């Protein structure tokens, strides 16, 4: 990130910022707008709030419109802008001065990853939290994923509406082709990501915490029927044709259940990214059986894998947005994470911290900015 123009985004007012190439440490008390700044930067990557806020909430209280514009340098220079009009409920996105006809064509131009204390919910939350993680990651990094996901969600919602309306086998079954085609692609691409990065994920966990054997694996609902993974299932998601075939068979098996419940009971909307720890030869979910430290470690490892994905898929160093990220980690673990980040690459870092002393450990050489009531002083 070289330049960032802010207009009425949250409490940040109207400002223009010029970032040093190695990054910056933003120091300020809580509720001054530190996280808002990272949220603004990441908005230009994904066109939504990483905190899950609606666009209307991002507009300054007394204003109707917010506008953001940022430029990145490097191998893939780009200028991305986004504006939202609260009254007209209109969002406009442009890349290098040209309005994007589809939001999906403008996604992922910055190459940024957010590390936040709330990431622990990725691990401790339900399966939908981890599917959401995969959906955002793959939407930003893999061509064709957004289209498959949107197509799948549409077909699923329509099929469920047809089931609720008691539309009959032919009118419900009409959605199966779209459901299976898009759904198999979604499952396949998620599975492929998890398989590619499971080794790195475990290695990150070990590097951060020193011990703990934590593993990551994608469990397609289509393969397991809800229970523990069956033998030979590992290869299941590798072959998209096989996924399609299996999906069709499971839809047929579940037909009566679907009709009775008025909802589609099989498909990637029920898949799980399993994170497990091995203890006495038993595989236990970190979500339920992990300690607080293990959950935080696994969450950091997911973000590190996300950063590594950007590096591999886009060939650029990711911008690391560290939102007081290690507040709840002990000193040893946070030092490990900083070392890992340094070993992996030399991308730009924008970190926030409430006190100067917190920033020292994480980035001694970074330029310091202060933030007070939304105003940033370089």
């Amino acid at each position: 990130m070289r330049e960032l123009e802010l207009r009425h985004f949250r409490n940040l007012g109207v400002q223009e910022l010029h970032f040093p190439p190695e990054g910056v440490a933003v120091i300020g008390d809580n509720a001054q707008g530190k996280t808002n700044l990272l949220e603004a930067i990441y908005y230009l990557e994904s066109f939504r709030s990483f905190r899950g806020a609606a666009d209307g909430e991002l507009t300054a209280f007394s204003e109707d419109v917010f506008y953001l514009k940022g430029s990145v340098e490097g191998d893939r220079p780009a200028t991305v802008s986004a504006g939202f009009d609260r009254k007209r409920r209109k969002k406009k996105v442009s890349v290098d001065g040209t309005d994007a006809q589809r939001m999906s064509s403008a996604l992922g131009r910055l190459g940024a990853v957010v590390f936040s204390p709330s990431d622990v919910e990725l691990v401790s939350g339900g399966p939908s939290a981890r599917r959401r993680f995969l959906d955002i990651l793959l939407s930003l990094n893999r061509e064709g994923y957004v289209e498959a996901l949107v197509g799948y969600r549409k077909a699923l919602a329509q099929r469920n509406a047809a089931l609720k309306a008691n539309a009959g086998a032919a009118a419900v079954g009409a959605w199966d082709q779209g459901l299976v085609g898009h759904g198999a692609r979604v499952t396949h691409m998620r599975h492929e990501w998890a398989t590619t990065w499971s080794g790195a994920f475990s290695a990150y966990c070990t590097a951060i915490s020193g011990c703990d054997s934590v593993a990551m694996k994608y469990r397609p609902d289509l393969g397991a029927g809800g229970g523990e993974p069956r033998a030979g299932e590992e290869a299941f998601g590798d072959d998209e044709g096989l996924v399609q075939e299996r999906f069709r068979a499971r839809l047929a098996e579940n037909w009566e259940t679907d009709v009775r419940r008025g909802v589609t009971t099989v498909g990637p909307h029920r898949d799980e990214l399993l994170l497990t720890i091995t203890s006495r030869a038993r595989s236990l979910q970190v979500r339920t059986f992990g300690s607080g430290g293990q959950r935080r470690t696994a969450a950091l490892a997911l973000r590190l894998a996300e950063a590594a994905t950007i590096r591999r898929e886009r060939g650029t160093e990711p911008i690391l947005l560290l939102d007081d990220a290690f507040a709840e980690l002990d000193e040893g673990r946070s030092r490990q994470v900083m070392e890992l980040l340094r070993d992996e690459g030399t991308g730009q870092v924008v970190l926030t911290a409430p006190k100067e002393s917190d920033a020292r450990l994480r980035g001694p050489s970074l330029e310091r900015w202060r933030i007070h009531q939304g105003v940033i002083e370089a």
Partner: protein
Amino acid sequence: MSAIDDLTRELRRLPGIGTKTALRLAFHMVKGPKEDIHRLAGALAQVAERIHPCPRCGNYCSAEVCSVCRDPSRDRSVICVVEEAYEVGAIERTGRYGGLFHVLGGRLSPLDGVGPGQLDIDGLLERVSDPEEKPKEVILATNASVEGEATAVYLETLLRPHGLRITRLARGIPVGSDLEYVDGTTIAEALAGRREVGDGSA
């Protein structure tokens, strides 16, 4: 002022017209010659009184049946099924299609309350089993969206027992785009490259 308010309100109900545009149009009419308003009103009245869906194919017409259905030189062995009547115009403008049409009047979308009963599917089934028409091929030219594809799949299951050739437009029509906005050459190519559907894949 209330007549202008009424007019503005009516204009606002048209697609793509907001309050500002509606006001601009209304004042433009008021400022212009009275004959212009009467001519517009007359044209609207004509549409209301004379235009109706063709009882055979659903295309809009003012005669008893539409000009396509009436034309003896059209190839009666092919029926091209489209979602909306304005798509008939898009295909006609290519000048490369000589068969008949059937307008469904929409596409399946249970989320919007549109099921098979809301579309003119019965009319299509009547036509394919009518011994006088007896078409040999039905082209499913619904849009390449999730809804358009599902509508095509649904029609295919109903048409299959009639033993005719069922085809779908070739890929090339951008996914999710309405025929209305696709250029003529692309439509003509998609028509020429249409492929048979239902060979075990659906």
